[in-house]
């Protein structure tokens, strides 16, 4: 067995054992945000597109899944699926507009469109406005596994995460992923090689939005509610921070980054109150100025230097 496979198996074992040592809801929250950040990384890290509106997909899926489960009475799995599909569709709409511009304009367009979606949620009746959509039942998986039990839900969430992580890993390492990287590195050259760059960008955007939606829907299921916070631009910024802190363009970076941020927020929330934003902002500034490779990126770079010296 390769060293890489052993590392993955150890991580999986840690994931399976985690709820016996740490409060399961916290681990589930980490997993949801890790999935969100991984989905985001697919776009920023591997396609080179900075979307500043990813919370819109996260929030939209949370609302749609919550509405489908609570009001339409759909089974939990179908509710999550509905949320994911809705986020993907929204991603297609936003993406096809946003890819008309590049670079910072792309970031501004996605931010603005996400703000529009936010205002829509604020005023639409099915979202419950400022109160949010509350009291969504978790239901039962396949009709007989009771998800109101935190431990049952935990393994369901872990399964979702592992599936999505595998999907992202496969995408990155597929020929499609290679083309995305080519676009990131040199877009004119990718065009001159005959690739329909716009189509690839849009596909990456839709995939990223749908998976961000899956994360949002799952998070809604864990906490049994969806609120405007899930769609606010603050969250769009947070997912950027998680990805950069962990290391954009690395497979594990988003996982590390989101764990750090979620645990930090969890620890700090009742101690420093609104200063959390200041701390998040400071981490942002420090990352951009000093650790642009992120935690995982720096470790990889360090490892490579060590190997280089030995050889």
């Amino acid at each position, binding site marked *: 067995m390769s060293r890489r496979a052993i590392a993955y198996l150890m991580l999986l074992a840690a994931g399976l054992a985690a709820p016996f040592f740490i409060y399961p809801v916290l681990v589930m929250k980490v997993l949801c945000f890790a999935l969100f950040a991984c989905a985001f990384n697919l776009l920023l890290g591997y396609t080179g597109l900075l979307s500043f509106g990813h919370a819109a997909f996260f929030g939209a899926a949370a609302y749609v899944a919550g509405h489908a489960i609570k009001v339409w009475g759909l089974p939990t799995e179908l509710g999550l699926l509905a949320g994911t599909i809705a986020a993907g569709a929204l991603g297609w709409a936003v993406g096809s507009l946003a890819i*008309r511009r590049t670079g910072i304009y792309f*970031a501004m367009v996605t931010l603005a469109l996400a703000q529009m979606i936010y205002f829509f949620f604020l005023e639409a009746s099915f979202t419950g406005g400022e109160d949010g959509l509350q009291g969504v039942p978790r239901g039962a998986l396949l009709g007989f596994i009771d998800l109101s039990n935190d431990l049952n839900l935990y393994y369901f969430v872990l399964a979702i995460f592992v599936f999505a992580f595998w999907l992202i890993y496969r995408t990155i390492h597929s020929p499609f992923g290679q083309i995305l990287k080519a676009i990131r590195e040199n877009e004119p050259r990718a065009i001159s090689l005959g690739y329909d760059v716009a189509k690839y960008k849009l596909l990456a955007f839709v995939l990223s939005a749908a998976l961000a939606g899956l994360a949002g829907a799952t998070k809604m299921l864990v906490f049994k509610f969806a609120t405007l916070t899930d769609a606010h631009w603050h969250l769009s910024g947070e997912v950027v921070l998680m990805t950069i802190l962990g290391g954009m363009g690395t497979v594990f970076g988003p996982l590390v980054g989101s764990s750090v941020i979620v645990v930090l927020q969890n620890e700090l929330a009742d101690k420093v109150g609104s200063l959390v*934003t*200041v701390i998040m*902002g400071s981490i942002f500034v420090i990352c951009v100025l000093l650790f642009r490779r992120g935690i995982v990126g720096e470790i990889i770079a360090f490892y490579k230097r060590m190997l280089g010296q030995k050889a």
Partner: protein
Amino acid sequence: MTEIFGIPIQALMGQLMLGLVSGSFYAMLSLGLAVIFGMLNIINFAHGALYMMGAFLAWMGLEYLGIGYWPSLALAPLAVGVFGVVIERSMLQWLYKLDHLYGLLLTFGLALVIEGLFTNMYGVSGQPYTIPEELSGAFNLGFMFLPKYRAWVIVASLAVCFLTWFVIEKTRLGAYLRAATENPKLTQAFGINVPLMVMLTYGFGAALAGFAGVLAAPAIQVSSLMGSNLIIVVFAVVVIGGMGSILGSILTGLGLGVIEGLTKVFYPEASSTVVFIIMAIVLMIRPAGLFGKEK
């Protein structure tokens, strides 16, 4: 009473004026963004936070030091400008050789820090700032009442915008600035201190945002969130107008303010989203923006 499309003319004109007022703010802020972008190639996400800072400094000046509106109108932008210079020297200058996105991310972090600090000190609820005596009351124009302060905001911001345009397009300093935007290395080779100009440009952009903040203080309540709510709309304005021309930024800002005001009269539900909808339409028809050049 006279009516246009079933709307009393007084209400219509009133909203039109409000639209022009918010358009003035869009114009000043998008102008600052465009000037900074031209020189630094950075989209200044902290612009909204600097605007909020300007308003708060004016409010704090009055509250703690008894500094009135008129001195604040000069002092607060100056302070924000100095703050901008400090940011540029200590942080932004290290990012010029990197991808433009890093500038956006850094200023986003800064915006969070500034906003978080003010939220921590003053909460999120608004602090009232009274309109100075000279500008309270209203003009009676016969067909409508025009609050003096609103008229002043429009006049003052147009004056500042015009002055900026004049300095950049018509003076020697502006010529240096445009040369440095076009080709910094060559300009430096002619003996012009480009890094100094870059620093001053950011300081000026920040001061402009601070000035807009002081102007806004009596018109709306001073709150720590006033900037971030505005900056996203201003981003949409910038995408619609494109950052190629100064006059373009000013016109787009004013025009969108008016459209927003009119939407409040005819279809209030869409008033918070109309700018974004226009942005989507512009992206479909003319992706480079109304006054933009495709690079």
